[in-house]
C-alpha cells in the first residue's frame, strides 16, 4: 500500500556496503514505535530501491511527500530516529543532513533515460515497475507489432550495442531473424568483467524487469523460445534480484507458455559465470553456457548464424536490452533525440577513480569529457591535477587531460585511441603512473587470456614482462618501440576481442605519455612516485613524534623505534606497502625517489 509519504532507501551493492540494510530496519523500527505509529505509519511506506548513482554519498535516503522530495546523504542507523521524528512526524526536514549543492550539479547534466526507473522504485516488486509503465512495450509488441516492425523501430532509433563494440542492435536482430531454423536463442550478457565498471550490476539490481522486458521483446523479434542471462557470480545481489524478478514475470504471465495469451512462448534461465573475464566475449560466453571452458572460437560463423548449441543466437549486453522497452514505449524518435549523428541515445558510465563525485551516471552521447569530470564529477579529489581518463577498461585507453574537450561518442573516443567500451571511466591524477597503469591492465589481460591463441597467450606475457622491467628500473632503450611493434602484431593476429584490444592501454599510454616511459627507462625515476623500485619510504626525524602508529601498522616489521623517539625504516625489510605513509598524522613518513639499478644487458 503506497502511503502519503514514501521513503526510498538506496540498497544497491554500494548502499548495502554502506549500511543500507541497517538504515532500512532502523526506519522500520522507528515507524513501528508506538508514538509514531499512531500518527504516521499508516500513511508511510519504506522501500528499498536500486542504485541511485551517487554511491559515494551512501546511504542515500529520499523522503517523498505530496510530490516534494528531500534527499538525505551519509545516513547511518542512529540518524533515522531524528528524521522520523522531525521530518516525518514533525514535517520539518533535518536540514544539516540533506544533500548539498554538489548533489544537484551531479545530476544537472545527466539524462536519465535507461536509468529512469532505477533508484525510484523497489526492484523486487513487479507492480512498482508496471506502475511506471513497465511491460507496456512488451504487451504492445507482442499483440500489435510484427517482429519486423520492432526491428525497424530499433534500427530507426540508432541503438548500438552498449557492451563495447557498438554494433547496431537492430541489424544484429535482423541477422538472427533471417537465419533459417525454428530454434533460436537470446542471451543477455551480464558478465560485466571490466574492472572499474558496474553499470550492468546497477541496472540489474535497480531495474531487473527492464532487462527481462527487453529480452522478451527481442525474443519475439528474432523468434527465440529460450533466453539466458549469463551473469557474474560475483554479483550476488544482482542474481538474487534477477531471480526474484523472473519469478514475478512468470507469475504475471510475461514469461512461460502462451505469454499474455498471444500464443508466444518464452522463458529465461540464469547461468552463473564462474570467474573468467574472457566469457564476456560472445563465443566464449556461448562455450561457457554449453558447459565448456570459455575459449572463444573464430568468427564467422557469427553467433547470429551459429551460436548456442549451433543455433542462431543474439547476445546483447544488459544496458542494450534495458534500453529496448523504453525505446518501444517512447518511440525511436525520443531515443534518437539524444546523442550525436552516429551515436544515438544515452550511455551509462561508472565514474570512478580520483574523482570527487564518483558514481553511476547517465549522459547523452556527445557530452564532453570535461563536462563529465568537472561538472558532474565535481573535479579531482583533493584538488590534485587531472592527468588522464581511462575509458573502456582493459580494452580501452587513456585520454590525456589535454583532450578533455573530446566528445564522448563511439567515433571520437576511438580516434583518441580509446573506446566507449562498456562504460568504465576511471579518472587518473598526477599521482598515477601511466606505465604502471598500462602494466596493471596487462597484468589483468595476461591472467585473463584463455591461452588458446599464441599472440595473446605469449604476447601479453611478453608485453607485461617488458612493462615490468621498465617499472622496476631495468628498462632498455628500444623497449618502447618493441612494445609498439609487439602490440600491433598482437592486435592484428589475436583470435578474439580480448587479445585484439589487450595492447590498447600500452599503445595509448605510449601515445600520450611517452615522456613517462622515457623517465623510467632513461632517467630511472617514476614521476608519479608509484613504481616501488624507484621509491623509498623514510622517516623525517624532525617531524616524527614517536607515536608508534607506523610501527603498529607496518606488516613487515620494517619500522624500528621506541615511544617518543624518532622511528626509522629498515630499507631491506620494507615492502613499500605505504601503510606507514598513509597512517602518519604528522607527515613524518616521506616517499622519496631512488635511482634505479644500472642497466646491464
Amino acid at each position, binding site marked *: 500500500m503506497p502511503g502519503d509519504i514514501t521513503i526510498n532507501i538506496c540498497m544497491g551493492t554500494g548502499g548495502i556496503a554502506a549500511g543500507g540494510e541497517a538504515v532500512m530496519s532502523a526506519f522500520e523500527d522507528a515507524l513501528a514505535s508506538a508514538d509514531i505509529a499512531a500518527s504516521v505509519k499508516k500513511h508511510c511506506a519504506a522501500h528499498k530501491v536500486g542504485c541511485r548513482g551517487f554511491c559515494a554519498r551512501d546511504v542515500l535516503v529520499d523522503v517523498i511527500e505530496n510530490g516534494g522530495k528531500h534527499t538525505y546523504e551519509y545516513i547511518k542507523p542512529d540518524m533515522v530516529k531524528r528524521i522520523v521524528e522531525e521530518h516525518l512526524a514533525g514535517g520539518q526536514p533535518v536540514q544539516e543532513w540533506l544533500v548539498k549543492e554538489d548533489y544537484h550539479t551531479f545530476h544537472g547534466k545527466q539524462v536519465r533515460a535507461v536509468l529512469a526507473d532505477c533508484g525510484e522504485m523497489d526492484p523486487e516488486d513487479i507492480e512498482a515497475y508496471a506502475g511506471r509503465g513497465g511491460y507496456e512495450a512488451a504487451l504492445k509488441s507482442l499483440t500489435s507489432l510484427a517482429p519486423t516492425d520492432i526491428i525497424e523501430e530499433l534500427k530507426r532509433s540508432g541503438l548500438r550495442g552498449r557492451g563495447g563494440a557498438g554494433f547496431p542492435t537492430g541489424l544484429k536482430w535482423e541477422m538472427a531473424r533471417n537465419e533459417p531454423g525454428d530454434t533460436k536463442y537470446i542471451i543477455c550478457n551480464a558478465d560485466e568483467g571490466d574492472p572499474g565498471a558496474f553499470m550492468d550490476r546497477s541496472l540489474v539490481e535497480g531495474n531487473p524487469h527492464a532487462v527481462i522486458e527487453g529480452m522478451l521483446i527481442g525474443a519475439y523479434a528474432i523468434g527465440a523460445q529460450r533466453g539466458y542471462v549469463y551473469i557474474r557470480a560475483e554479483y550476488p545481489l544482482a542474481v538474487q534480484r534477477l531471480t526474484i524478478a523472473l519469478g514475478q514475470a512468470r507469475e504475471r504471465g510475461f514469461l512461460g507458455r502462451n505469454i499474455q495469451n498471444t500464443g508466444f512462448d518464452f522463458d529465461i534461465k540464469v547461468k552463473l559465470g564462474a570467474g*573468467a573475464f*574472457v566469457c564476456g566475449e560472445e563465443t566464449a560466453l556461448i562455450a561457457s553456457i554449453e558447459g565448456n*571452458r570459455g*575459449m572463444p*572460437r*573464430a568468427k*564467422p560463423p557469427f553467433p547470429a548464424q551459429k551460436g548456442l548449441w549451433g543455433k542462431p543466437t543474439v547476445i546483447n549486453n544488459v544496458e542494450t536490452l534495458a534500453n529496448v522497452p523504453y525505446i518501444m514505449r517512447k518511440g525511436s524518435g525520443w531515443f534518437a533525440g539524444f546523442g550525436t549523428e552516429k551515436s544515438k541515445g544515452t550511455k551509462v558510465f561508472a565514474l570512478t577513480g580520483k574523482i570527487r563525485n564518483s558514481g553511476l551516471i547517465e549522459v547523452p552521447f556527445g557530452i564532453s569529457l570535461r563536462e563529465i569530470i568537472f561538472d558532474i564529477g565535481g573535479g579531482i579529489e583533493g584538488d590534485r591535477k587531472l592527468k588522464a581518463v581511462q575509458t573502456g577498461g582493459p580494452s580501452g585507453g587513456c585520454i590525456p587531460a589535454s583532450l578533455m574537450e573530446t566528445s564522448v561518442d563511439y567515433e571520437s573516443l576511438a580516434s583518441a585511441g580509446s573506446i566507449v567500451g562498456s562504460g568504465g571511466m576511471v579518472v587518473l591524477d598526477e599521482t598515477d603512473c601511466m606505465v604502471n597503469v598500462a602494466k596493471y591492465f596487462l597484468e589483468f589481460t*595476461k*591472467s*585473463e*587470456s*584463455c*591461452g*588458446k*591463441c*599464441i*599472440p595473446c*597467450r*605469449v*604476447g*601479453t*606475457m*611478453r608485453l607485461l*614482462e617488458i612493462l615490468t622491467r621498465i617499472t622496476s628500473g631495468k628498462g632498455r632503450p628500444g623497449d618502447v618501440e*618493441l612494445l609498439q*611493434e*609487439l602490440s600491433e*602484431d598482437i*592486435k*592484428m*593476429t*589475436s*583470435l578474439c576481442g580480448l587479445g*585484439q584490444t589487450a595492447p590498447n592501454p600500452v599503445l595509448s599510454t605510449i601515445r600520450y605519455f611517452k615522456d613517462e616511459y622515457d623517465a623510467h627507462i632513461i632517467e630511472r625515476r617514476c614521476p608519479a612516485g608509484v613504481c616501488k623500485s624507484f621509491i623509498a619510504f623514510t622517516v623525517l626525524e624532525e617531524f616524527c613524534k614517536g607515536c608508534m602508529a607506523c610501527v603498529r601498522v607496518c606488516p613487515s616489521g620494517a619500522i624500528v623505534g621506541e615511544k617518543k623517539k624518532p622511528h626509522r625504516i629498515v630499507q631491506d625489510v620494507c615492502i613499500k606497502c605505504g601503510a606507514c605513509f598513509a597512517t602518519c598524522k604528522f607527515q613524518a613518513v616521506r616517499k622519496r625517489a631512488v635511482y634505479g639499478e644500472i642497466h646491464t644487458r
Partner: protein
Amino acid sequence: MVRFTLDDQEIVVPEGITVLEAARRSGIFIPTLCDDSRLEPFGGCRLCVVQVQGIPRLVTACTTPVAEGMRVQSTNEEIERRRRTIVELILSDHPNDCMVCEKAGDCNLQELAYFYDLRTNRFYGQRSQRLVKDQNPFIERDMEKCILCGKCVRACYDIQGVGAIDFTSRGFTAKIAPPFEKDLDCEFCGQCVSVCPTGALMSKQSLGKGRQKDVQEVDTICPYCGCGCNLTLHVSRNEVVRVTSRPDTINEGWLCVKGRFGYSFINSPDRLKTPLIKKDGKFAEATWEETFDYVATRLGAIKSKHGPDAIGGLSSARCSNEENYLFQKFMRAAIGTNNVDHCARL
C-alpha cells in the same frame, strides 16, 4: 562451387571449404601449426593469417570459409612480418634444444624457425612451467615443447572419443594435461603423438632409435585385426623403430595401440631362427634340407599308410592371401585332402 581470388589468381572451389583448404588445393603454401584437415578447425596458432579485402584485421585461413567474390592475399610483407612474430613468440616459450630433440628434422616448428630465419629472439622471457615426467609405458610427454595447438586434445576427444587430456588452466599457465596432472591413463592409441607438430609427444619405444632422416619408410598393412589399417614402418638398421600411418588411407591415418605401438615383436629375440626337429622329447636345430626331407618323408608315409584324409592342415588368418592360397593348394593338390581350415571361428 564458389569463385574467389587468391593472390590475384581466380580459383573455383566447392562451397564450404576454408581458405586454407582452397590454398592447399591450389598449391599455395600457408604455414600452420594447429590445422589438420581431419580435425575441426581451431584457429589457435594464428600462423595462417591472411588478408581479406574489406576486413581490417587479418583473419585465419583455417577458420574462414571461402565466399563468392572474396579477395584473399596469402602473403605479403605485413603478413609475413606478423607470422614471424608469432613464431618468435612460440620460440620464446620453447626449450629450443633441437640438437638433441628426437623430432629434429621432422618438426614443423623447426621448419618455421628456419624459414623465418629466427637466429635471435626479441622476446626471451619467462618460460611456462610444465610437467615433463609421465610414467606411462607408451608416450613420452615433454610438455615443455607443447605449443598448445590442441591437435592432441581434438584427436583424443573428437576422433578417438576418449578425452584423456584437455586444456587446463588458462593464459600463460595453460597446458594440456590428464586430469589432476597425473600420468596418462588411456587407450594409448597414440593419435595424439601422430598429430603433434613438435617434439612434445613422442613414442617412448622410438626414443634414440633414429631420427626421421635416418629411417626408410615402408608402406604396408597392419597385422592385427580385420580393419586393414595402412601402416608405414620406419626402418633403421633392419629394425622397425616406429610406425605411422598416412592420412589419405582407409584408416585416415588413425591407428590403435596395437597397430601403432605393437611392432617390437618383429625384432624380438624370441623369434624362431632355425628349423627345429624334436628328438627324444627335445628340440634340436636342423638345416632346412634335413627338415624338409623329414617332414616330406613322414607325411608321405602317413599318406600311403592311412590315406590323404589322415592328414589335416590349419592355415592362418595372419598369413597373406598368397600363402593361404598355396597352403590350401598344397593340402588339396600335393596331399590330396580337403582337410584344410583356418581360425575364422575363433
